């Protein structure tokens, strides 16, 4: 079965490069020429205050394939309730909106879920999200196979190393990288 899939993949790759690549984000060895369609980089989340009902998770998704894909959902062991949301500043008003249609990741492009914009909304948290205790997630796509990842937990109001700015400065004003599917 696996061989059959590999053979099928190779054929697809030869014909038109990867349409649907196999990638589970864990220990799958990629054969020559095979590339994961969706790559996950820098998954992170901020620690939440005690009693906080919700937390926003962030991640960068890169579509290396040549077909558009859509992030349609995510699951985690810490809550049954994860939704895809966006928020935006409308003047001084922070507006949040669920994205039931998911988040589109166009072929060859990267979409960054970041503070002030697209986020994974973790709800009904039974206990706070704590620094140093990564959150396991499984990301589900319309076409690509599910990807497992771990969100690194940074302190309340902080940003991960390499993100540059600290809370309250400029990282909240990133350009909207996302493409919303409605």
């Amino acid at each position, binding site marked *: 079965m696996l061989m059959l899939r590999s053979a099928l993949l190779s054929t697809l790759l030869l014909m038109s490069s990867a349409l649907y690549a196999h990638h589970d984000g864990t220990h799958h060895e990629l054969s020559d020429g095979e590339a994961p369609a969706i790559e996950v980089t820098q998954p992170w989340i901020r620690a939440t205050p005690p009693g906080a009902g919700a937390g926003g998770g962030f991640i960068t998704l890169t579509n290396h394939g040549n077909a558009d894909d859509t992030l349609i959902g995510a699951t985690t062991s810490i809550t049954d309730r994860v939704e895809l949301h966006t928020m935006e500043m409308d003047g*001084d008003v*922070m507006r*949040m909106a669920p994205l039931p249609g998911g988040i589109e990741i166009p072929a060859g492009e990267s979409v960054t879920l970041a503070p002030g914009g697209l986020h994974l909304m973790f709800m009904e948290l039974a206990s706070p999200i704590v620094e140093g205790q990564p959150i396991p997630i499984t990301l589900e796509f319309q076409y690509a196979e599910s990807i497992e990842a771990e969100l690194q937990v940074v302190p309340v109001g902080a940003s991960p190393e390499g993100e540059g700015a600290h809370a*309250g400065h400029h990282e909240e004003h990133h350009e909207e990288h996302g493409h919303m599917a409605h």
Partner: protein
Amino acid sequence: MQRRDVALLSIGSLVLLLTLAVFFAVFGRQAANPPLAEMGGQFQLVDTEGSVVTQDDLVGKPTLLFFGFTYCPDVCPTTLFNLTRLIQQLGNQADQFNYLFVSLDWERDGPEQLARYISVFDERIRGLSGNEAQINAIADAYRVQYERVPMEQGDYTISHTAATYLLDREGSVVGTLAYGFDLDETQASLEQLLPSS
């Protein structure tokens, strides 16, 4: 039409467009942000100890006032953390100000929930809550926009004004700080609100 008429017409159109652009830039913005003089007024809320807090309790110290809710995924904890850093930066001036976090989520946030939530931030930030009428009264007074956004399973989140209000020692609104406010700039504005020594 003669060439000169065309030129005049073009200039005329350009002037008209610029005028319209300026008009919308000025008045469109004012529609979103009502004048400071229209903000403020009486309110009655309860703090995390259960004590009643009104507008009159703020008089004597300048106030930083932020509205949010504890179910907020990012903007509220980030702002409260920013306020905490500001308080640290103010050092021994910090006690000369009031810091208030008002929950707009009258259904889910009460004194106990707020007490737990704000425990990780600077202890000088006071968490205030109220019933629906009380929250609507203070939101109306300060021109705070808030709106429930339904989610799956009958749940909701809240879109809301994310600015921090600056009140002088008499309790009048003298400015707002945009979300993600700069600490140094804010410190400079705050110092102006203290009595000159």
